[in-house]
């Protein structure tokens, strides 16, 4: 049976090895050629859009890249599905947007702010998501029209 020293060695070696592997894989997945985060297309508008997104905790209800509150729809590729006009109207609305009776906070953004958020959505829409966006409907517009 295992002695206490062996058990401790198992803990220490296991921890160090997996941490090093984790850091190695992190470097690998962000290195040139393997990186698929679409960072080269980030514009100042996208950054401002992300800031507005965070400042208002949109993720507290919506999901994006599949992460968020599960209370409101996924917004990856939302511009493709709904079009910029509708999204802009919702973002600028002074009264709560209320699809099916579920209320969204009325943010009343300015036109510039709404454009920034849309730039952020457009940027998100171009990320390679390992198939999540193609297989999981109704994320992609073509998926909806096919059915």
């Amino acid at each position, binding site marked *: 049976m295992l002695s*206490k020293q062996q*058990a401790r060695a198992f803990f220490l070696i296991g921890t160090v090895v997996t941490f090093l592997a984790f850091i190695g894989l992190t470097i690998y997945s962000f290195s040139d050629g393997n990186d698929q985060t679409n960072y080269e297309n980030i514009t100042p508008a996208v950054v401002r859009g*992300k800031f507005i997104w965070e400042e208002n905790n949109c*993720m507290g209800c919506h999901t994006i*890249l599949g992460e968020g509150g599960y209370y409101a729809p996924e917004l990856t590729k939302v511009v493709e599905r709904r079009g910029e006009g509708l999204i802009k109207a919702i973002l600028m609305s002074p009264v709560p947007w209320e699809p099916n009776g*579920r209320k969204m906070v009325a943010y009343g953004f300015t036109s510039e702010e709404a454009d920034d958020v849309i730039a952020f959505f457009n940027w998100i829409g171009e990320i390679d998501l390992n198939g999540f966006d193609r297989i999981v*409907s*109704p994320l992609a517009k073509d998926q909806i029209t096919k059915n």
Partner: protein
Amino acid sequence: MKYKSQKVAYWFFALSMLLLILQLVYGFIMGFARIGMDGLHEFIPFNTARAVHTNLLVVWLLSGFMGAAYYIIPEEAQRELVSVKLAYVQLISLALVGVTAIVGFHFNWWEGRKFLEIPHQLDYLVVANVLLFLALILLTLFRGKRKTTTALVLTMGLVFAALLYLPGMLPFDSQVTDSFFRWWVVHLWVEGVWELIMGGILAFLLIKLTGVDREVIEKWLYVIVGLTFLSGVLGTGHHYYYIGVNKIWLVVGGIFSALEPLAFLAMALFAVNMYRKGEKKHPNKIALFWTIGAAIVSFVGAGLLGFAHTLPQTNLYTHGTLVTAMHAHLAFWGAYAMIVLAIISYSLPNMTGRKLYDGVRGRVAFWTTNIGMIGMTMAFGIAGVAQVYLERKYKMEFMEVQDQVSIHFVVLIICASLFAFGVITYIADFYKHGRPNDEAMETIKDPFQ
């Protein structure tokens, strides 16, 4: 209680209980909003309620962990805390930072990064607070008469938890990298270093409650935390499948996530075996219930239900659905909430001198909370699976699906009410114990010491 300074723990536990009640209130607000009763929308919209609900969970658990450390470390190190006054300063500052953050959420003051909503300015205060806590614990440990494995594992967990808070404070322009490093905090906390803390508390409780030899328990503690890191660190990959990083994570995350239940299985087997091995039984049955319960429910909630959707093939459909909420509720309850309630149940009679060991309230609290939580988990689970089929297989619109599954949230609220009843009963018991006092040092004799 052997050392006067252990009393500090009581106030950390009291803060914990207060925040737990608040967490339940916000949980109910969210539950009602989901069935269309969103009357508080103007004051507390869903995103506020959610941020408060999850952040309160983190703060009450941390307060519980800190209380546990203030109780356990003096006893393990065999000396008083280096400074009781500073421990109280730390407690008050923790409460202030927590309350400020929670109040701020109501005024749109936050960073909307799921689970890490506390704004940057407050992050620095959190860091200062945790550094003070660690300084007190580490100094006590190193000046102590002995350094036990239990104390070292617990302390190591707390130190790593503090270190891993830092990647969450880095600013990124890209949503993908932002998410990537956010999981270094969130995942490596709950599926890594918090398990060290849980393991440390569990080992301490098993030593006290079963009377099994410390050497035996601590050997298995190393094996368990070894398994935790071996699987949990690279298991972080299961958050990286579909957020815009390389496909390598599908393989790495899939394999190591599949190993993650092993650590919890080992924990459950270990706790039950130690209980059966222990010839002498401690009279504090309620503490034993919570301790063994934590080990078993964490295996089901964190281990099995986690495994249910961490394979990339499954996660492709369940990612971003209520299935996650199903797993999260039972996992946090079993692994962390129950272990905090276990250490409170064990230490409270020792600190206050009142042996409300085996009262009806204690048992009622244990069973109603657990039955309520299992019911909630099932309600979330059925809603989640229905959502996956309707929305992702049959391509229905998000909101149509939400209407279809809203009945499950009625069930959820009923189960949550039972759960809340149990929590209130637990807290009534807590209150009935009264305040900690120095006389308790003489009146209580631990049977195994």
